[in-house]
Every structure is written in structure tokens, then in C-alpha cells.
């Protein structure tokens, strides 16, 4: 179970204090693909980073399969992140100097798993990237880049996938591939949480939460 209870986050902007997330609670059951929809600036990314153990909430608790990641020391939390969370971003954030295969294998930097390479190859084949293995990100189409990022996110089979506007830079067709993958991935007993401003993308999820902000 993924459980957020009364999450609060505010930022100080000069003398103003902006409450970006105010008392947000959410429970996601295993096997569910959840979309959090909201306008630009409504705090979607902020929420995603808090769930992703990268941004400490001012208030409230995050429980991922019963673990409060913010109770762990930074070193252990980083390890926890490597094992349990996969990220997909709108800008892909692939390392420009690594090939497709190598980029996928960066998930193996910290959390070493046996047969990582075979798994990566299988994944890439599944995502129609087998002919792109040795290409650099700059040589790929945006759809291919996002599929590479997706393969990287799921290589360790994490319990939780966090996606921030994953289809924001993609055409409908490529976007559909990603969304479809999320649905299937969640169905295997994982959680996928996607934040998006796109109603269209959100509608593919099992459930939509609306973040109205302020």
C-alpha cells in the first residue's frame, strides 16, 4: 500500500509563504495505476518528489509498503529509492554519453541485481528498442527516448513507478505506448503514480485524483 497522510509543503518566496500542498492524503492499493491531475503550478511535481523520497514534506507522512522513507538516513533512503522507486520524467533525463543499453543499466549502479544485462536486453526488445541498443540518446526519436527512460525505471522491477508528465513531449501514439505499459506494470501488483495536467492522459489511469492547488 502507498499511503500519504496530511502531506503539507510550502515554499518561502521572499516574504511570502506559498502553501503548495496543503493537507493532501491519498491511499493507493497494489495493482493500481493512479493519475494525479492538476493545472500547471498546482504542485504536481512537488507531490511526486515527496512521494519519491527526494523532498521532505513539512508535515504528514509518506508510507511506501509500510516504510516511512523520511525516517531513514540519507544513505539508506537513497538505497531504498534505488530498490523501490522508478522515475519517468517529461524530459527523459537520459545521460547523453551513454548508449540506450548503458542508460538502462544505470539503474544497476547502486542496486546490483544479477543478470541485469539480460533483463535490460529483454526489456528493450519488448519496448521495440533492440535495434537502438548502441545508440546515444541524441540519435533517438523522442518516443524512443521515453521508452529508454521507461526501461531504466522498471529494470529493477520497483514496487512504485512515479511519472511526471511522461507523455508531455510525446505524440499520441508514443504516449499511448507508455500509458499502456504503466497500466500493465501496475496490474502486476505494483503502484504507478502519474502526475499530469492532461485530462486525456489521466483518463487512462484506474483512478484520477485532482490536485486543485492552493
Amino acid at each position, binding site marked *: 500500500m502507498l499511503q500519504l497522510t496530511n502531506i503539507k509543503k510550502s515554499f518561502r518566496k521572499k516574504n511570502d509563504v506559498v502553501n503548495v500542498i496543503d493537507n493532501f492524503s491519498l491511499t493507493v492499493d497494489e495493482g493500481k495505476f493512479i493519475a494525479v491531475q492538476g493545472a500547471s503550478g498546482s504542485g504536481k*511535481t*512537488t507531490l511526486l*518528489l515527496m512521494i*519519491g523520497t*527526494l*523532498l521532505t514534506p513539512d508535515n504528514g507522512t509518506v508510507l511506501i509498503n509500510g516504510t516511512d522513507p523520511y525516517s531513514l538516513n*540519507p*544513505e539508506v533512503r*537513497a*538505497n*531504498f*529509492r*534505488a*530498490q523501490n*522507486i522508478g*522515475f519517468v*520524467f*517529461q*524530459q527523459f*533525463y537520459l*545521460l*547523453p*554519453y*551513454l548508449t540506450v543499453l*548503458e542508460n538502462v*543499466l*544505470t*539503474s*544497476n*549502479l*547502486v*542496486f546490483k541485481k544479477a543478470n*541485469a544485462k539480460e533483463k535490460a536486453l529483454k526489456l528493450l526488445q519488448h519496448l521495440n528498442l533492440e535495434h537502438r541498443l548502441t545508440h546515444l540518446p541524441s540519435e533517438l526519436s523522442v518516443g524512443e527516448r521515453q521508452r529508454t527512460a521507461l526501461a*531504466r525505471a522498471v529494470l529493477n522491477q520497483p514496487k512504485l513507478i512515479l511519472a*511526471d*508528465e511522461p507523455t508531455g513531449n510525446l505524440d499520441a501514439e508514443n504516449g499511448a505506448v507508455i500509458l499502456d505499459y504503466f497500466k500493465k506494470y501496475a496490474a502486476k501488483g505494483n503502484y504507478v503514480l502519474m502526475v499530469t495536467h492532461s485530462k486525456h492522459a489521466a483518463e487512462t489511469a484506474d483512478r484520477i485524483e485532482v490536485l486543485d492547488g492552493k
Partner: protein
Amino acid sequence: MTFLKLIIKEISYRKLNFWLSILSAAVAAGCLIGALTFLRAHKLRTEEIIDRKEIETKKRVIKLEDDYRKITKKMGFNVLILPKDQNLNDFYADDFASKYMPENYVHKLANSKIVTIRHLLPSLQQKLKWPEKKRTIILIGTRGEVPNVFKSPLKPLVQPVNPGEIVLGHELHSSLNISIGEVVTLLGKSFKVSKLHRERGNKDDITAWINLKEAQILLKKENKINAILALECKCAWAGLAKVRDEISEILPDTQTLESHGKALARAEARDRAAKEAVAALDAVKHHRAVMLAEQKDFVSTLVPAVIFVCAVWIGVLAFGNSRDRRYEIGVLRALGVSSKNIFFLFLTKAALIGFAGAVLGCCAGFFAGMLIVSDKSQTVSLFALFQPNALILTLAGATILSVTATWLPALSAARQDPAEILRKE
């Protein structure tokens, strides 16, 4: 995928940054090893020069000695002029003449047209007990040379003793532990020790020399002398008989003996030649030492300055690199790489840069140092120049330098907030 592979991939992607960093490390390392090699080369070269000079000097001394030997041989002998009534048995037994002659005899001789003798040394000698020291000594009063008016002035062979001063033979000063500048009392009068002679192995060793006038007063023999030593008698062609004849014509109540002067002259000549050679060698050594000190001075300001600039350069480049890699750092953190790992990622790269730069710099610096040397010397070999310690020092030093210079940039990279980076759209 490993961190090392990641580092290498990144290096080959951002080549310019990497090579500029390597260059900085290489310049620092090259500068250090170049300086060390250069100083070492200087040392070897100095040894080489001094060795050669020493051999040259030895040869020169031998040659000089030989020359002097030949010259003194040609000179024939030195003669000693004593009062006629001096009993020679007593003279040889006592080491001094007990009869006296007027001091102006020497002027008579000097003003005569005698050609066979030069360098006239009048003296008043007496063997006596040095009452203050309870030692038997030969006291010689000397006034240096009396110039011969009919000959061109020569450089005096024997220096006079100034009034108030005393010169001591080896046995006296060494056994009494007297050093130059000390004041000693002789027959109730104070003398300042102006010179100490080296061992000569003859009666000179127990002799004290003072000014003639003072000796005459001390011994109550005003205007008297008891010997005239005539050095460098140029009479190989004439022999002692001719010299005797000439002298007795001018100074009828004297007798003339051959003196020990040959050995003395030779010893002095050899002494002078050796001193001169040693002085020349010392001058070379001094010159080289001054040069080395100047070079060390130069090196010890230049090298740290260059190294400092290189370190700053490496640091600046590392900062640039960490800025270029902002997104990379953000995503690596999202992938579970800890901030500690990021820190070590940068430091490992820095260590690689430092080491690789040092290898390059060592090659360059070593050959540069060698070129400078080989320009001047063929005998200082490459093997002699090679210093394993300097090499290890430089390799380790450059690595540490690069790591140290990258410390702050690495820290700043590690401290970047991934949330801050990843929230940007």
C-alpha cells in the same frame, strides 16, 4: 554498469574539459619534475666539473713542482754569510752564530755590483730558553729582504715580520696550543702572533721570528746581525767558489757557507702552488654553490606559483563540469545514487586526471630537464638523472593536488538538491 565505467564514459564525452584538466595537472607535474631533474642535473654537472678541476689541479701542482725543482736546480744554491771568526763547529752544534757583524754589511753587499746573489736576508739568531714558556727556541730577528740596488726589484721571497708581531714554527704553536691573534710574552715583551708555520721537519719548527730591530733590543745586540742568507744565487755556471770570492772581496771579515735554502725554497714553492690550486678549486665550488642557491631560489618561488595556478584551474574546470552535469546529478540521485557517491564520483575522476596528467607531465618535464642538461654536458646520463623518488613524489603529488582542487566542486555537486533540479520543466 559501474561508477568507474560511468566516469570513463563521461570523460570521453566531455573531452575538452578533461584534456584541459589533464593539461593543468601535467603542467604542475612537469614543472615539479622538471625542476627536480634540473637541480639534480646541476648537482651531477657540478660534481663532474669539480672532479675534472681536481684532476687538472693535481696535474698542475705536479707540473709546478717539477718546474720549481728545475728552477731551483738551475739556481744552484743559497748561501749563508757568517762573521769570519765564527767557529763552524759551534755554529753547527748550536744552530746559530755566536759572533756578530754590523747590520750595515748587508747594505754594503746590496750596494755592490755583485751579480751572483740576490735576495739578501739579514738576521740575528740565537738559541735561548723562552723563559715564559720554559721552552728552548731559536729566536730569529728578521727584517725581510734588503733590495739590491743594481737589480730590478723582485717580488720578495720572504716577508718581513712587523714590529710587535711574532711568527711561530710548527712545534711551538702546536705543542703550546697557540693560535693566530693571540698575544704571547717573550723575554718580558708582548707579541701578537701573526702567522703560524706548517711542519717543515727541521729546526724551523722550534723557531720564533720577530722583527730584527726588536730582536736586537731584546738580545742587546743593537745594529748587529750574525747571518745573512742569500737566496737564489744564480751561479750554476760559477759554483760556490766564485760566490765566495766575490763576497769576501766586499766583506773581508765574513765566511760563506752553502745553506739549506734549496729545500726551503722548494717547499715554499710547492706550498704556494698547492694553495693557489686549492683557491681556484674553491672558487669553482663557490661559484657553483651560488648558482645552485640562485636556481633553488627561483625554483622554490616559481614551482609553487605554477602549481597553485594549475590547482585553481583544475578546480575551476571541475566547477564547470559539475554545472554541466546538473541534470545528470539530479537523475542519478533519483536512481538511488547517494550524495556521498556523487562526491566520490567527482573525486575519482579528479584522481584519474591528476595521475594521467602527472604521467604526461613527468615525461615532458623529464625530457625538458634533460634537454637543458644535454645541451651543456655529454657525460650526465639519462640514467643518472632518473630519480624514482621524484617520480613517485610527482605522481602522488599531482593526484593529491587534483583531488584537493576538486574537493569544493565535488562537495557542491554532492550537495545539489535533486528536487530543485528535477522540478524544472
